[in-house]
């Protein structure tokens, strides 16, 4: 019997998810032993045309990482959906837009302006990337940037979600073990739509720091604090920690080493909008009553949307800035 086929694809993302899979060490060998790796651009040379030539649903499972930012991303999402029995939104980008999703607060023009005419760019001719370039050697094409970043499940149906930026290697191993077990008939697939490789509570559940009632009178950035207490809750020390509103599963990696959680595992189960949960939670414990005094505390959060929606913007209720959305067809 031939081995079931496995694919992994990298759309708009940094590549960290790919590294995280490799970081599972010998688990990759087990993967190879149980699957026929049919398509994995980061690991092997396969052309898109070869994927297009595959039979529909011939891939058992595809781990899709990266957001949908370009026409090419969208095309590959459709293609892989078609060729895969199980499509997994793998990592924060595919699930909720992640850091690339933050670009949704700006229009494409703003982004180009920043990238190609910003203070650190030398570009006196105001060159901009072109989608088609006719060179003497032939026509070069570059996939067009879409108006906003979308998540995989806003483009195609997704079977499972593995959150994290990147997903913890320990958790990836759990997911791979599950897949291998399913292939060998030792386990059944969880219900469609399930979140794999994560906990059911929030980061605080795993965070060892001691905690008390919260009364925020000042919010600081970490570099502004002279020192940090190593054992008490970071939020209580005035740091914006996203832990209370972020799905558990990472073993509270960041708070463990004194860095506040930035929310990469996304919203807790059943939550519609992670940013709104952070917003309401933080605002609720501001210990002031007068509007001016409240504002003074909130001034400690210079970029609320970027803070609360650092990872989940593209998947949030509003998804993007109004001007950027206005460019969508």
């Amino acid at each position, binding site marked *: 019997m031939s081995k079931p086929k496995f694919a992994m694809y990298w759309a708009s993302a940094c590549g960290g998810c790919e590294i995280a899979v490799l970081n599972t060490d010998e688990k990759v060998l087990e993967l190879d032993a149980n699957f026929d790796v049919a398509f994995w651009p980061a690991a092997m040379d396969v052309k*898109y*045309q070869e994927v*297009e030539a595959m039979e529909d649903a011939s891939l058992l499972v595809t781990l899709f990482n990266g957001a949908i930012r370009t*026409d*090419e991303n969208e*095309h*590959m999402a*459709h*293609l892989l*959906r*078609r060729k895969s029995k199980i499509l997994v939104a793998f990592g924060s980008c595919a699930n909720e837009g992640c850091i690339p999703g933050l670009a949704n*607060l700006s229009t494409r023009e703003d982004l180009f302006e920043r990238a190609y005419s910003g203070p650190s760019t030398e570009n006196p001719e105001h060159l901009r990337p072109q*989608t*088609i370039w006719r060179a003497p050697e032939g*026509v070069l*094409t*570059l*996939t067009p940037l879409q108006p906003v970043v*979308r998540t995989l*499940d*806003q*483009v*195609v*149906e*997704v079977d499972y979600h593995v959150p994290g930026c990147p997903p913890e290697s320990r958790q990836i191993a759990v997911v791979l073990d599950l897949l291998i077990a399913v292939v060998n008939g030792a386990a059944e697939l969880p219900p469609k739509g399930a979140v794999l490789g994560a906990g059911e509570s929030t980061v605080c559940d795993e965070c060892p720091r001691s905690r008390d009632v919260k009364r925020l009178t000042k919010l600081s950035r970490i570099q502004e604090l002279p020192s940090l207490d190593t054992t008490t809750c970071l939020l209580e020390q005035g740091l914006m920690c996203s832990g209370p509103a972020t799905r558990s599963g990472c073993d509270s990696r960041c708070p463990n080493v004194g860095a506040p959680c930035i929310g990469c595992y996304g919203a807790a189960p059943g939550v*519609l*909008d992670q*940013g*709104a*949960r952070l*917003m*309401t939670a*933080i*605002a*609720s414990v*501001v210990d*002031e*009553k007068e*509007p001016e005094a*409240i*504002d003074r505390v*909130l001034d400690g*959060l210079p*970029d*609320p*949307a*970027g803070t*609360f929606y650092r990872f989940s913007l593209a998947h*949030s*209720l*509003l*998804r*993007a*800035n*109004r*001007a950027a*959305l206005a460019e*969508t067809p």
Partner: protein
Amino acid sequence: MSDSFEPVIIGFTCNWCSYRAADHAGMTRTQYPPNARLIRLMCSGRLDPTFVLKALADGADGVLIAGCHPGECHYLEQNYKALRRHRLLQRTLAQFGIEPERVRLAWASAAEGVKFAAEISEMVEEVRKLGPLNWPARPRPLATVPADIPVLSEVAA
């Protein structure tokens, strides 16, 4: 923007003051524009910013949050939580390009039907001036992928 634009406003009111202020406006036959549709909460402290985001994302042009006057909350001081959330929400919404007039916080006691009506009238006019928000709906994927996916090189060309 056309003159006939009638904004749709979702109003979140508390059971003790602002919802009763709306009742009071009724009892005193205080007329105000019919653009606001009210939802009763027990307290403005129940106001979850998610409600506001959802209302705006689902087609409302504005959201009114109304509670008891500061210091007069039926639950002692929960309306201050609404105040804080509103201020943070406003800061966040600004980054999404949503004008502050679209999300108004108002205080009205059970006896202030006239004030409540005036708040709605003012807000309707302000939002009318801003024009429709018309937030694009969340994309939902089709259950099936089209059978004929074009070859990528053709898409790019």
